[in-house]
């Protein structure tokens, strides 16, 4: 049945499972032999548009525990879809081993082929080879862990009631952004062992005595030795600690074992998704470039007809549309910029101009575009990739310009445009906006008053004096205080001067 070489794979829009298999084989041959991609085994799931909405809602996770926030997300997706405001992405892929790609049944044969090339090879290769994913995520275990998480949370709901579980989940979700190890976390979590350890750990903690909390308020004599003991305690708590969820899970005095486990589940899932946003541009750029390359190759080999190729081009150009600021665009479409940069690297490798030789002496004209791209996909993240590879050519194509927004001035100043003097400034700023430290508020636990009222002290190290959004901060802090069980104080610090810009506190309801 498998035709090993010649002839059209299909004609027209209709597809069936044997067409999908044939396409997959043809695509795999291009991907592996021509482009040298290295992928996890693939699993392709055919679903309806309704199921696609479900997949969307759960960030592509095939399994998730019940929570109202998913219901909310579902409602807004469903609504946008029904009103026609949003076309469903024709593919969703998740970083797991085997790599699962979802195909919608409504897609035409060409779209199915394109999605296989995009997701099952483009994204798949990226997931498997990028250093960040390798370091942070354990794709072979994620599905089992999600299943464990859902089971665990639903058992908790049976035992302790939905409300009690929701209270912990709500508070923990609010802290998700501060629930990852950003710098130290080079050890990736072994999710399988995680499930088995969970039970043993809880059992042990249930039975054993927590030494830390023996510290009852002491008399004046104790105060004298306070300072050194305080230091020891800080050390014991691992302070300062940037991972708030981790700290709560380990040290919050009033939590029941099952509550700690729920916090842990939220934390591990957040950790799992942590690399995705900082690789979005590269990931999409890679997948789009791969599908574009593969579809072109299939057309060159005569495996798809002109109509199918036109459809593929049409679809690609929709995805890589970049609006200008006049159309209201405030940021770059990761598909557009990512794809443009991949194309550009290919061009620099094969047909460099004098400018490219000047900017990229190490890769210009090296004649190995695929190898160069594979290297970039493996070793960089969005921020460093842009800093390294955003070329003057792409900046010109996008007609980039930089604004200085200074609140003391009544105007915005254009301080760099796409010219010789502006390239580096623009590149630096684009890279900076893709740096995760620009998105997450830097908040640390700095002290725990173990000798007094157990107040938990946090510091927000502000950037450029940007303090936290007040309403959100209050709600989040309330959740934090609720989990901690005692008073919580948050200082917003101006880093250069060390001065405190604002102080907030919250006390859990008794």
């Amino acid at each position: 049945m498998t035709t090993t070489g010649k002839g059209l794979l299909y004609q027209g829009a209709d597809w069936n499972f044997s067409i999908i298999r044939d396409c997959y084989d043809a695509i795999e041959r291009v991907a592996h032999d021509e482009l040298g991609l290295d992928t996890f085994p693939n699993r392709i799931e055919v679903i309806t548009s309704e199921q696609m909405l479900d997949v969307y809602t759960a960030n592509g996770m095939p399994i998730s525990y019940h929570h109202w926030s998913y219901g909310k997300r579902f409602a807004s997706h469903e609504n946008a879809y029904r009103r026609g405001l949003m076309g469903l992405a024709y593919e969703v892929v998740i970083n797991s081993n085997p790599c699962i790609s979802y195909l919608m049944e409504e897609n035409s044969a060409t779209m199915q082929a394109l999605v296989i090339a995009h997701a099952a090879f483009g994204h798949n290769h990226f997931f498997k080879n990028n250093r960040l994913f390798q370091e942070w995520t354990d794709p072979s275990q994620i599905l089992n862990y999600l299943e464990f998480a859902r089971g665990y949370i639903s058992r908790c709901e049976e035992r302790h009631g939905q409300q009690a579980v929701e209270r912990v989940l709500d508070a923990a979700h609010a802290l998700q952004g501060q629930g990852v190890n950003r710098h130290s976390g080079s050890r990736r979590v072994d999710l399988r062992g995680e499930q088995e350890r969970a039970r043993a750990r809880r059992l042990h903690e249930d039975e054993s005595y927590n030494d830390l909390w023996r510290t009852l308020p002491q008399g004046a004599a104790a105060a004298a030795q306070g300072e050194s003991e305080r230091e020891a305690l800080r050390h014991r708590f691992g302070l300062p600690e940037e991972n708030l969820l981790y700290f709560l899970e380990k040290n919050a005095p009033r939590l029941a074992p099952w509550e700690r486990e729920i916090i842990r589940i939220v934390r591990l899932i957040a950790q799992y998704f942590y690399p995705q946003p900082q690789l979005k541009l590269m990931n999409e750029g890679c997948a789009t470039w791969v599908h574009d390359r593969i579809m072109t190759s299939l057309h060159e080999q005569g495996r798809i007809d002109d109509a199918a190729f036109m459809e593929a081009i049409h679809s690609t150009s929709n995805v890589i549309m970049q609006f200008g600021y006049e159309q209201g665009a405030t940021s770059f479409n990761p598909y557009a910029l990512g794809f443009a940069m991949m194309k550009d690297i290919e061009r620099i490798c094969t047909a460099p101009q004098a400018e490219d030789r000047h900017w990229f002496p190490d890769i210009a004209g090296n004649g190995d575009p695929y190898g160069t791209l594979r290297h970039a996909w493996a070793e960089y993240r969005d921020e460093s990739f842009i800093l390294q590879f955003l070329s003057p050519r792409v900046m010109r194509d996008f007609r980039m310009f930089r604004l200085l927004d200074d609140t003391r001035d009544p105007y915005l100043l254009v301080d760099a445009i796409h010219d010789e003097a502006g390239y580096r400034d623009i590149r630096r700023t684009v890279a900076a906006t893709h740096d995760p430290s620009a998105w997450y508020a830097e908040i640390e636990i700095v002290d725990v008053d173990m000798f007094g009222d157990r107040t938990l002290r946090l510091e927000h190290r502000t950037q450029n004096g940007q303090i936290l959004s007040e309403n959100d901060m209050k709600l989040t802090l309330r959740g934090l205080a609720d989990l901690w069980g005692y008073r919580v104080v948050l200082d917003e610090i101006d880093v250069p001067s060390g001065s405190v810009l604002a102080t907030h506190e919250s006390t859990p309801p008794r």
Partner: protein
Amino acid sequence: MVHAREAVRLTQRKLGSGALEIIDRRSNPHGKNLENRRRALERARGAVQEAVREAVANGRIRDTGQGNAVTIPADALHEPGFHRVFTEGQRHIVLSGNHEFSRGDRLRRPPSGGGAGGGGAGQAGTDGGGEDSYRFLLSRDEFLDLFFGDLELPDLVKRELAATETTTPSRAGLSSEGSPSQLDLGRTMRHSMARRIGLGRPKPAELKEVEARIEQLEEERPLSDTALLELEELRERRGALRQRLNRIPWVDPVDLRYRRFAPTPKPSTRAVMFCLMDVSGSMTERMKELAKQFFLLLHVFLEKRYKTLDIVFIRHAETAEEVDEETFFHDPRTGGTVVSTALEEMIHVQRARYPAQQWNIYVAQASDGDNTTSDTPHAVKLLEEDILPVVQYYAYIEVAGSGAVIRGETDLWQAWRTVAERNAHLAIRQVTDRKDIFPVFRELFSRKAGTEVART
């Protein structure tokens, strides 16, 4: 992972470096998010309820409650987090699509104040906003449940409701006679078996055995004495067995059992709602609007509980007539007010089309309270003697003009009040403003009158 097991594995094979698996999940259960959706609605219950009531307030009577989309503000389902906001200082933004700017150009700051159209790339969630409102499509039942929440038909009404009966046949045990189609075979055979065992009916197999032995002995000649004796005994036994078998039938008429059906009374599920409104000159559009709100609520409320619900619109000034909904609300009339004409018309329609034995009858009357003084005793008599005995509930709403100080007590109010003192299912309320409508409605129908009223 349940769905994985259910899924049809279409293909799984090794190829090249990686295996491919294609799974068709289209037939898997849909609606994974129904539970999440329910929880979201539950969480935003207050906001959803408000939205639902708003939707009803703006709808037409007959359209209401047909399954609706409600929109609830985003903050009811807001998920907080720590986010920075750019309020002051400096920042850089790179945008695309430059056609005319050169370095050093100055741009007017966009009016939003937040800078060039929001934050820089990827700068998530400024002041936690950015989310739109959420729209939920509610099914009719969800909609009405949310809308009426804890309201219920008053006990009084339910008791009367049980008295208005139609009958349907329902199973009522067994009987020994009936039509063959209702024969209960299991029971019949159980009785038959008991009787057969009790009377010692021989088994056919036993007779066959005896017959076979006799045949065998008759073949073997000559017979010994003992054999001869046995043969004779056997012949005798055969005669006895045959006799018993014939005398005791397999199934006797006394065994027969039939399923019995008895007519059982069922509460009628049909209701009719009479809307009576004063359309005389003194009723302004605004007052009619108030009345409409009330009619609408009652309609939706009743519709939730009855399979079929008819509405009859009767308007009156000096004379009364039955009209359609459009005319009822929008066709202005002038003239004096004679309430009894409307009551007479209502009685007339009810007797002609809605016999009280088969219909649950509800009446909602709206008026500004004016009536020709001489007519009032007649109206009271009609109400008390002809109407109240046949209706489940009679609600009278008196609407007052905007901002009007509640003027003493109107003629109609005084008259109806004395009747209401003697008849618990006549309810009278005054309404001055749109926002009163729902509380008044709740008050009339709340489950435990005392506590619920206090809460509204």
